[in-house]
Structure formats: C-alpha cells, structure tokens
C-alpha cells in the first residue's frame, strides 16, 4: 500500500461518528461570518447595518490577490459588523452578524451552463463562489487552480485521506455524494486542463473506495489506496505516496506539477458550477468522547459551536476540551460562542486527559523517526528554546508542517510543535516578516 516515511498511528476513533447519517442542520437564527474566512487578506465588507441579505448574497469582496468572496449563509438582516474572537488569528476580527428573517431565499451564482464554460469562466465561478480549501487551510481555491504559466500542471489529486482521528465527514460525503465528487473532479480537470486525476483514500475507508470504484468508468480518474497512517493527508506526503514526486523544501505542489484539493472542496466546486450555489455551508464531524451523540452534519458557515453541539446531544459535564478540527492539528477554544468557519472540518470534544508532566528529553529518537518531513524535532525544540533561530532554520525549522507527530509520540511529553510554531513566528518577525 502507498505510504511515506515517518508518521504515527494514533487511535483512529472513527467508529464514534462513522455510523451517523449526514444531518442537514436548519439555518440558525444568527450567524457570525468572519470577513477573514480564508487564508490571505480579509475580505472587504460591502454591506452595512440593517441591510437585507439573501442566502448566497455577497457580503464581502476579496481584499487582495490571495483573498476570497464571503457570502451570507442565511436570509436575514445585517444586525451589525462587530469584532469577535477569531480562533485562528487568536484575536478579535471583523465579522458580519446576520439575524435570520425568513427561510432561505437563494441568490444563485450567475453563469452559463457549466458544460459551455471556458477554463477562465470556471475559475471566475469558483472565485465568485468564495471557495477555499475546506480541509482546514482555507487557501483560496481559485488561486490554487491558476498556477503561474511556467508551472506545468499534469496531475490533480483529491485528498481523501482524512487522517485526523475522530473525523469522518469526508468519508461520509464520499459515500453519499460520490457522484458530486466525480463531477467536481471533472470540472477541476477541465479548469486545470490535466488528463490525470487521483483520489487518495486511506485503507480505513475501504467502503468508500469500493463505492467510488463502481462509479468510475474512465482511466483518467484513478483511485489510490493509501496506508492508514498519520499524516497521510499532509499535502506533500500525499503527493509522494501517490506519484513518488517530492515537493522541494520551501516549494509548493505546483513545483512538481500537482494540485491537491480536499474532498469537500471538490464537492463545493461542483455545487458552485453545476448548482450555482456559493459556499455558505460545509460538512463537519461532531465527535469525541465528550459529546453525547457523535454525528456528521452540514451546517451554515458562521453558526456558533454551541448551536451545532446541540444536535450532537450537547457535551458531557466532564468534557475538558473543545477543538475546532481534529485532535492532532485542531485549535482548542474555551468558549462555545465561536462561529465555525469555512475551514472547520469538525468539532472534537475531549474528556479530561491523563495529566502528564513535561520531563527532560531522553533522546529516545521517537520524534526523529516519526517526523514525516525528515526533521529532528528534539533539536528544533532545543534550538528554539535557546532562541537560536538561525540555527533552527538551518536545521529545517521552516520545513515543519506542524502535524504534531513528534509531540504525540514523545514519552517526555515535550511540546515540540508549540515551540516550533513560536520559533517560526519569531524568526519571520525578525527577518522582515516574509512568509
């Protein structure tokens, strides 16, 4: 089976939410939509207080080249434009607060029949739909799909690894929306003008693999079964497992002729191009030992966590951590009035964990052998703590993908990732902030 060097095997915990059917949540009474609902520059707000908005109506326009449209997820009235806590930025950011006034009245995207659209029109549609990477990175999709002319793209890969423990939404969508996924892949292939696409699925989702297999009838789209191993869904590891190509350090997938998109992103592309719906909702898994009824849902962007958790039967009294995303890379929040974003792939609620005290590194080599990027996390941690940032960069600090494998395996319970993330930030701040 296809794989990569390094990686870890955390408990999968997929069984918690695996059986639950996809539930479409009713539009909530209020949504809080960040204008920074993507990587890059925040969108520019084009609505003001008391404006009436329809579902799918543009409320924010791209604020730069790497930026994206933001749409109203419900039909209602703009209550105010407020600063609220942004879990990724870690500080209050502008958000549009919309109060529901009626059931959905859609404002659909305007474009010709999708089969007649040119490559440029497809890109424009994807841009207009506000689609960003739904795997979690939230990088604007239209930017990813329009590489510079000197980068020849020949392969498109659908990231269906879903290697984070607990999360099952992509799995669910592959079973329930397989046709949409395949159509979406065809649209992306036309946009990129490539002849070859792969769907990389981890072996723990064999039913989705079999299901897709029965639906695929062309050689252009090929299924690839991947070894179940974390972080199989990390872009560079995925590309290597499927194509054997290594993205150079500091480079991007397009440097080896590949574009990768997550399952949900591809489905969102289909919905935008074929159904003319901008991105106003997304699927996510509500799971973890701390929720009463693990479930897979489709919710409007901007719905607060608390509201979504109700559908999962609420959280248990002993719950200790609520995480946006999966447990390996997700962000813990300490209040439940935070809205979900375009990149929120799940809400994981964990019970009180066994408490570990951080000990001295005993040089057990587990982090070195676990690192999928071939780094030496113990060394980066050491250098970061000594504030030797230049040395750390020399040792590959910037190549770290922050997957958390090192901290997971460490018997001394050292927080490598936290130190590395901080060191990266400090280094970038000291060296002119070039990302």
């Amino acid at each position, binding site marked *: 089976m296809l794989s990569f060097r390094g990686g870890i095997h955390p408990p999968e915990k997929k069984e918690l939410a695996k059986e639950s059917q996809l539930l479409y949540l009713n539009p909530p009474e209020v949504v809080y939509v960040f204008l920074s609902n993507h990587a890059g520059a925040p969108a520019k707000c084009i609505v003001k207080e008391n404006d009436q908005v329809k579902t799918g109506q543009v409320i924010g326009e791209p604020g730069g080249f790497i930026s994206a449209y933001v749409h109203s997820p419900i039909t209602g009235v703009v209550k105010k434009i407020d600063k609220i806590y942004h879990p990724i930025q870690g500080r209050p950011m502008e958000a549009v607060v919309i109060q529901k006034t009626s059931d959905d009245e859609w404002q659909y995207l305007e474009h010709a029949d999708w089969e007649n659209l040119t490559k440029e029109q497809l890109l424009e549609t994807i841009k207009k739909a506000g689609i960003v990477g739904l795997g979690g990175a939230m990088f604007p999709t239209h930017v990813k799909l329009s590489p510079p002319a000197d980068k020849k793209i020949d392969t498109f890969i659908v990231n269906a690894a879903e290697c984070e423990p607990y999360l099952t939404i992509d799995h669910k969508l592959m079973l329930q929306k397989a046709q949409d996924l395949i159509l979406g892949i065809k649209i992306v292939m036309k946009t990129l003008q490539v002849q070859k696409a792969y769907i990389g699925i981890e072996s723990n989702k064999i039913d989705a693999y079999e299901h897709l297999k029965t639906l695929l009838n062309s050689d252009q789209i090929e299924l690839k079964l991947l070894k179940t191993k974390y972080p199989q869904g990390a872009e560079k590891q995925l590309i290597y497992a499927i194509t054997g190509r*290594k993205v150079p350090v500091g480079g991007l997938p397009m440097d080896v002729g590949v574009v990768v998109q997550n399952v949900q992103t591809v489905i969102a592309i289909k919905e935008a191009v074929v159904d003319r719906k901008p991105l106003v909702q997304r699927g996510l898994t509500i799971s973890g030992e701390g929720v009463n009824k693990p479930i897979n849902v489709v919710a409007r962007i901007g719905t607060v966590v608390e509201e979504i958790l109700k559908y999962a039967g609420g959280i248990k009294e002993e719950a200790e951590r609520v995480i946006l995303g999966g*447990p390996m890379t997700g962000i*813990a929040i300490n209040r439940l009035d935070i809205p979900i974003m375009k990149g929120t792939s799940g809400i994981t609620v964990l019970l009180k964990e066994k408490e570990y005290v951080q000990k001295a590194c*005993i040089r*057990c080599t587990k982090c070195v*052998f676990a690192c999928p990027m*071939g780094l030496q996390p113990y060394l980066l941690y050491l250098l970061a703590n000594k504030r030797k940032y230049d040395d750390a960069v020399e040792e590959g600090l910037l*190549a770290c993908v922050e997957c958390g494998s090192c901290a997971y395996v460490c018997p001394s319970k050292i927080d490598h990732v936290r130190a590395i993330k901080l060191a990266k930030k400090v280094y970038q701040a000291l060296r002119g902030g070039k990302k």
Partner: protein
Amino acid sequence: MKLITKDAPHIRSEDTVRNIMIDVLIALGPAVAGAALFFGWYALFLCIFGAVAAEMIEWFIVKVLRKQKEFVPDFSAAVTGLLLAMNLPPTAPWWLLLIGIIIAIGIAKQAFGGIGQNIFNPALVGRVFLLISFPTLMTRWINPLMAFSKSPWDVLTSATPLGVLKQQGLKEALSSFSYTDLFFGNVGGCIGETSVLLLVIGFVYLLYKQRVSPIIPLSYIGTVFLFSSLFYFINPGRFGTPLFHILSGGLFLGALFMATDMVTSPMTFKGQAVFGLGCGLVTMTIRYFAGYPEGVSLAILLMNALTPLIDRVFKPRIFGEVKS
C-alpha cells in the same frame, strides 16, 4: 464545566519515560533470573540491591542536595543500578557496587544535570571506575552452578572465556567452553553477561513493545562478527572464531542494553548504524591488541563521547531536500 485551551496535538501517546524504564527492567528480568541460577542467590541480591540503592541515591541527590521540591522516580536510576550490578563479577562485595552506583548516579548522571543530560552511560562509567580502582575485586570470576551450595567466596576462581582465549589461545578456550555453554550462559563472567539467550529474550520484549530500535545491536554485533571473521582468516589460532567472539564476554549485554542507552547514543538511523560500527571496531581492537581481554565497556564509552559529533554529521535528509 471548564474548558481549557492548549496547543495541538490534543492527544498524546501513552508512552512515558517511566513506562520505558519499567519495560527495560522487565527486559533485564530473564538475565537476572539466569544470574541467580548460574551464580546463586548472592548474584540476585546484588542485582536487587543495585536497583534499589541507585533509586535511593538519586532521591538523596535530587531531594536533599539539590533541594528540588518533587521527586517522582522514573526508574532510570534503577536501570542504571541494575545494569551496573550485572556488569560486576558474582563475587563482588556489596560495598563495591555501592561505590560504583555513587559514581554512576552522582557523577556520571546527576552532576551533568540528571536524566537526558549525561554524555556517558552512567552504569559504564561506574563500572570502568571500579575496574581501574579495584582491579582484583573486579576480576574474581567463578564457575557457574558451583555457587548454589557454597558462598561465592569459597569457590575456586576461574577464568572467563575471553580471558582463556587471551592467555592460552583458541584451542584451550574451545576445549574449556562449548558454543552451547556460551549461548546459554553456563560460563564464568559478569553476573548478567553470560547468557546470550536470556539477554536476547529480554531484548525481543523491548522490540515488541517498540521501546528500542534494533539498529545499534545489529550494527554492533555485525561489525564484531565481520571484523573477527577477517582476523580469524588471517590467524585462526590467535584471534578466535567469529562465533566465539560474539557469544563470549559482555558483547550481548553491551550491545543490547548498554549501547542502546537512548541518552548517550545517536538520534538517527545512519548515526546509530555508525555508532554500532564504531563500538564493534573499538571492542575488537581492545580485545585483540590491548592487555585487557574484554573491550565492550570502553568501546561504548568512547563512542558515547563521539555521539554529539555523529549527530552533527549524520542528519536525516529533510523530505524534499535537493541533493547538493
């Protein structure tokens, strides 16, 4: 309900330093049991005494001398104490072991800053200190299975296989010790080193629990085998067969449980392979050309000193790094 925020990852493996050390103690179990069988109850007493005394000395240093508020034993000191005991002759007096432990824990480990900070394997530092300071006491060997009925000080002293090889040549060595004896441990030697079989059983347990990687032992023992094959080919009478070299002396104890000490060995696949190779070469050089018949302890200590250098030179290739 109180929610806490913490950095990712939010889940951790159940491995802890303490778990690892307990597994090492378990893995040494068969060899300790074998020692009791071969050399009698006193050998077993030394092993237990070593482990307990080492923990107590560490507690004393950390709590009393360093005045740290908390001391939660991670049993790394017990491993050191046990290993040191296993590296002594079965006739070693208990106070000799105690001195060794004080040196091992007090100087080789805690003076460097405690667990993870030491450069040299503490047990080996203790052993080599004793070897230099008390050469007679450290080389009073007895034959196995003679000790059950008698106290170890009454029995005839004997020689170790490598000693016989050094003094009297291969022919004499092979007539005194069969390969089966060497494999099962029915020969003279240090308390825990004689039985290759029991040491391997313990090491397989560590492998099964994924506590260690087999790179260093494979590279170490492999090097000894190849190196001694070469010399055997040159002069069979003087240098001994490769099998004899592998099975005798402290090679397996050293390669499986001392060279693999995490703190003092390199961090990468290549580095560990080189480390094992170096241990093998130095061991054989000492065995062949030095006055002392055994070379494992000194070889590992020497390579410990080179570990930072090896770590610096043999780094893993960063994924996607272009060959330059």
